[in-house]
């Protein structure tokens, strides 16, 4: 897909998508920051409760302490950085991709299909759809609509590094 030179939508939708981006980014940033600043957070509890087709892999992640430590570190920093980037509109596509890949894993670890019983109750589950899946979809939209270039640091960066002249934008 060629880099868009101009935003693909008019201003109204772009503002809406930027708002969406900020909200999703805020959520990620908060999740990441609370884990970073908490005295003892580990994904172990969540991983051990994993269900679904990939449960075995998730349990295995929790079982080995070195793997678990890395998982924890990656999780904390990924969430924080993705969140910050999304809020700022920096490397938006990359950040969205990273965020949605992570959320997809989370979704698959706790799929809201009927009949499963969890020790950690999952709220916001609506048969196959749950809030994780909704957020994944939001990130896809963000990834594909270049709001970073509209209102975000990506705009500055692409301005700095662009060689071809720009058309006047709205």
């Amino acid at each position, binding site marked *: 897909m060629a880099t868009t030179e101009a935003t693909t939508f008019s201003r109204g939708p772009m503002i809406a998508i930027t708002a969406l981006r900020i909200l999703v980014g805020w959520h990620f940033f908060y999740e990441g920051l609370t884990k970073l600043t908490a005295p*003892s957070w*580990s994904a*172990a*509890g969540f*991983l*051990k409760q994993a269900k679904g087709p990939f449960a075995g892999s998730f*349990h295995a992640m*929790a*079982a080995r302490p070195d793997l678990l430590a890395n998982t924890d570190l990656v999780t904390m920093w990924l969430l924080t950085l993705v969140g910050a980037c999304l809020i700022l509109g920096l490397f938006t596509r990359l950040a969205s991709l990273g965020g949605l890949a992570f959320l997809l894993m989370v979704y698959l670890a706790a799929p809201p299909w009927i009949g499963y019983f969890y*020790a950690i109750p999952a709220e916001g589950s609506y048969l196959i759809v749950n809030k994780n899946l909704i957020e994944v979809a939001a990130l896809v939209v963000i990834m594909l609509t270049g709001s970073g270039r509209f209102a975000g640091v990506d705009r500055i960066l692409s301005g700095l590094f662009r060689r071809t002249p720009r058309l006047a934008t709205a």
Partner: protein
Amino acid sequence: MNHRPGTPEGGIGLAGNRESGPLRRFSHEAMNTVFEVHAANADARYAAEAAQAAFALVDRLEGELSRFRPNSDITRLNHLTAGESARVGEAALECLLIARHVHDLTAGAFDIAIGTGLPSIEIDADAFEVRATASGVRLDLGAIGKGYAVDLVAELLEDWGVERAFVHGGFSSAIALEPPPAADGWPLTLSDPRQPSRVFCRLSMRQAALSASGVRKGDHIVDPRTGAPVRGRLAAWVAVPRPAQARDTGPRLAPAAVADALTTAFMLLTLEEIEALCERSPGLEAWVLPDGGSMETTDLRHFGGPADEGAGILPGPTTAGED
């Protein structure tokens, strides 16, 4: 471990026996179940006073051991951060030592520290102090506390001279003391937890602890070693004889608590492991009901048997780290 609160787990029953004279029966709600004292051949009022003292003891133990009490010893431990330590009382210490003993015996199948694992606490038995080596320790004595209470109630009843008694907590932890007159033992039944009217086996017990673990429909038990739910076991019962000698110093040998812990573990161990453990520990007896799938399968497996003296399964002074 992950049982719904309030549902009796046990497949233990007390068969009626009309010939042996008056049976006094006293009940008390505690630890999310019902404790009962059955006393044979005892004066009604005296037995009531003894039972009341016993239930006051159970209440006190609940206050020290329950993780649902904000100021219990266990809750205090559950709030420690890595490196912090706290003092505990005798009950908590003895329960933790028993938990460690059974943890070692079963290679980690029995683990009261959900999530962080038993190695996340260090026990200094001399100083009655427990140190957390990791944060977020979540101790749960649900699998031992009832048995421990039953043990202490049995001791109290003996102190009061109410020697012909049967004590249980929710029919999942029980101790048979001396039997009613003209009986060899208390008449107990092991029954199918899915169908309590279906009796697998009748026992006549005296001076022994009997414990039961069972799964109700929809429950699952989580194997602490893998974090995965366990299938394939419907119920397990364990009998441990009461030690003959009273102890003066050192942690209490608590047969019902040990039996409690073992039944929980036996829901997870393989039949071969259970058999090996029973062979190593004279006096230990176990019954296991594997989940055969169909309701008709009766495949109660029986391991071990009563021994002449003592029980090799109980923690001795050396293993408790007393020195």
